[in-house]
């Protein structure tokens, strides 16, 4: 279901051969400047081995300044693969950097703007790429310095650090082994804050009113209650929420009650009663829907075997189940051999499984005993219920459930397509109740 896992940045890329790289000593997450460092053209930068995954909503890494070297001319940030590595991040287009010597933020230009404090030996800098808001933010020793860059739209950004004077040295933590090297910053909190802002922006979305000016929520609740057959609540909602004007007909109530009874009988294995009620409620349904008819009769056949009425079951199977399974072109004998053309594979399999029950003293314990279990009966009951609803021209599901289903599927699809913000969201936590809404929203979604 989830998008294919993309590799994460896990170390500095020591494999790049460029003139600047000879000025750097790169060892995993550690980099030291060993060049002459006398002028800007001596600058050298590294970038990580992989870009930030494109579906990653919040990417975080830390850089510890092992040594400020001569002038502490270090730049920390991101750049794309096209950016030359003989420049500090931020000097070139598609690169962003926070520089230690002056605390300025650079993006695409040789001159920066005042942003944060300077940083030096022993400091650690947190770097946050927020793909939801398209920003880059830095922290110094855990202190949030605020947004440094906005409108960060590059899809493939690599963490990058640049150097300019001798003996400058840093160690990065990309969070790939948090057990051994935990982050010093509070990533959970950073994520939670970002998630909260995302929820706030979603919750400021306006929902269109109903076409007839009705209260959308009221209508949805009413429709749901009606669909579930909670008639009294539906009536109270119609009165108090919708201001009257809607009612449930007595016929609908009666239909629903019959449907419920049918469901109960199917679930209890009382198929005869259920069949009779189906004929009463929806004459023509069984003739028009041979699949449903077959499944009910097949269940009846299985229930007879369970009740020990083996002879009767065989007789019933021969006269009712098999002919129905074999289909209109008819024929006698075992459906499995002759009726293949007219039977869905699943139905044929079910028939075989049901027939197999005959072979066991205790059919429920046999390999096809599932047919007699509550789960199977309940599923059949649900199938019958859907068929009855469809037959009466009513929707199989209320608009509220349909909207929930659509919201869930759309969110799933967004996640699957690598939409960064969607990775932070979770429908379930939005629906759960009994907790403070703020806390609820702080729950990061699965990602």
């Amino acid at each position: 279901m989830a998008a294919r896992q993309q590799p994460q940045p896990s170390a500095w890329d020591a494999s790049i051969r460029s003139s600047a790289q000879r000025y750097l000593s790169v060892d995993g997450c550690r980099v030291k400047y060993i060049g002459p460092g006398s002028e800007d053209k001596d600058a050298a930068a590294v970038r990580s081995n992989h870009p930030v995954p494109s579906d990653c909503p919040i990417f975080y890494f830390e850089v510890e300044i092992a040594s400020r070297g001569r002038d502490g001319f270090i730049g920390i940030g991101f750049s794309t693969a096209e950016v030359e590595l003989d420049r500090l991040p931020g000097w070139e287009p598609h690169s962003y950097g926070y520089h230690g010597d002056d605390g300025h933020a650079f993006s695409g230009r040789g001159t920066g703007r005042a942003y944060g404090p300077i940083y030096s030996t022993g400091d650690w800098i947190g770097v946050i790429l927020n793909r939801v808001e398209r920003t880059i933010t830095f922290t110094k020793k855990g202190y949030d310095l605020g947004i440094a860059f906005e409108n960060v739209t590059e899809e493939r950004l690599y963490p990058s650090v640049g150097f300019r004077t001798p003996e400058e040295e840093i160690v990065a933590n990309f969070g790939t082994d948090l057990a051994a090297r935990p982050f010093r910053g509070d990533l959970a909190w950073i994520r939670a804050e970002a998630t909260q802002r995302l929820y706030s922006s979603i919750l400021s979305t306006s929902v269109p009113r109903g076409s007839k000016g009705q209260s959308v929520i009221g209508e949805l609740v009413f429709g749901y209650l009606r669909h579930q057959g909670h008639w009294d609540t539906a009536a109270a909602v119609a009165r108090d929420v919708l201001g009257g004007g809607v009612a449930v007909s007595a016929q609908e109530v009666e239909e629903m009650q019959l449907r419920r009874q049918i469901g109960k009988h199917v679930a209890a294995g009382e198929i005869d009663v259920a069949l009779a009620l189906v004929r009463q409620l929806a004459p023509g349904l069984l003739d028009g829907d041979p699949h449903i008819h077959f499944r009910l009769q097949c269940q009846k056949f299985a229930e007879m075997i369970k009740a020990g009425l083996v002879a009767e079951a065989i007789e019933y199977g021969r006269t009712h189940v098999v002919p129905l399974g074999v289909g209109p072109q008819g024929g006698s004998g075992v459906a499995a051999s002759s009726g293949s053309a007219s039977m869905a594979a699943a139905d044929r399999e079910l028939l075989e499984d049901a027939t197999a029950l005959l072979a066991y003293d205790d059919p429920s314990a046999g390999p096809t005993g599932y047919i007699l279990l509550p789960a199977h009966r309940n599923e059949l009951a649900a199938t019958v219920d859907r068929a009855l609803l469809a037959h009466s021209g009513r929707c199989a599901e209320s608009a509220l459930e349909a909207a929930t289903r659509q919201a869930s599927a759309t969110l799933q699809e967004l996640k699957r397509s690598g939409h960064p913000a969607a990775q932070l969201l979770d429908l379930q936590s939005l629906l759960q109740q009994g907790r403070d809404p703020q806390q609820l929203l702080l729950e990061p979604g699965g990602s």
Partner: protein
Amino acid sequence: MGRGESNSKRRISRDEWERKLKDVKIRKEDMNRVVMNFLVTEGYVDAARVFERESGTAPGVDLEQITDRTEIRRAVQSGDVEQAIERVNDLDPDILERQQRLFFHLQQQRLIELIRGGQLAEALEFAQEYLAPRGEDNPELLEELERTVALLVFKDVKASPLADLMDVAQRQKTASELNAAILAAQSQEAEPKLPNLLKLLVWAQRQLDEKATYPHIQDLVSGQLEDPPADN
């Protein structure tokens, strides 16, 4: 630079989308809880009580304690805004004192009810005396005020562009705003979760529109799945 930007949207057919929809598991308990949360948060005590009995869903709060809110809501919804204001002030005079915007909306609703009742002279007087001064103080409200007062000039308000103000939904909106303010004053959860669900739906559909074409739910009331527009 458009590097890496996708230029063609994925097309998800109705069949494919329906399969995805079918895979979504919706638990009845979750739906029931969301409905109960709506009834309780919005102060529909009677309905909440009946719903508890019919569905076995626990309200999660003491229903006795929300009777005040219920009655205040009922007053707004039946068009008796004056009574609602009185009762809120009995409960906690700070609520309307502090929230000018809410108070304005209540007065606006009062004006709407006067117009609905055909009491045009009273409506005009009321607007001039109570609403106009507040609107002048607050440019944000001025526009709403102008829109509401414009109701006076339409003979058939229901056929006017301002018909939405006369809807049941407008009463609902005002009642909900007041209800939420009372809840907030009592440090309780003020917003029901059900609207969040719909907002998420609207937001998510809009986001996915940028990546794919697929069947939508546009009309939330019917919940009908609509095919995406043909390729453009």
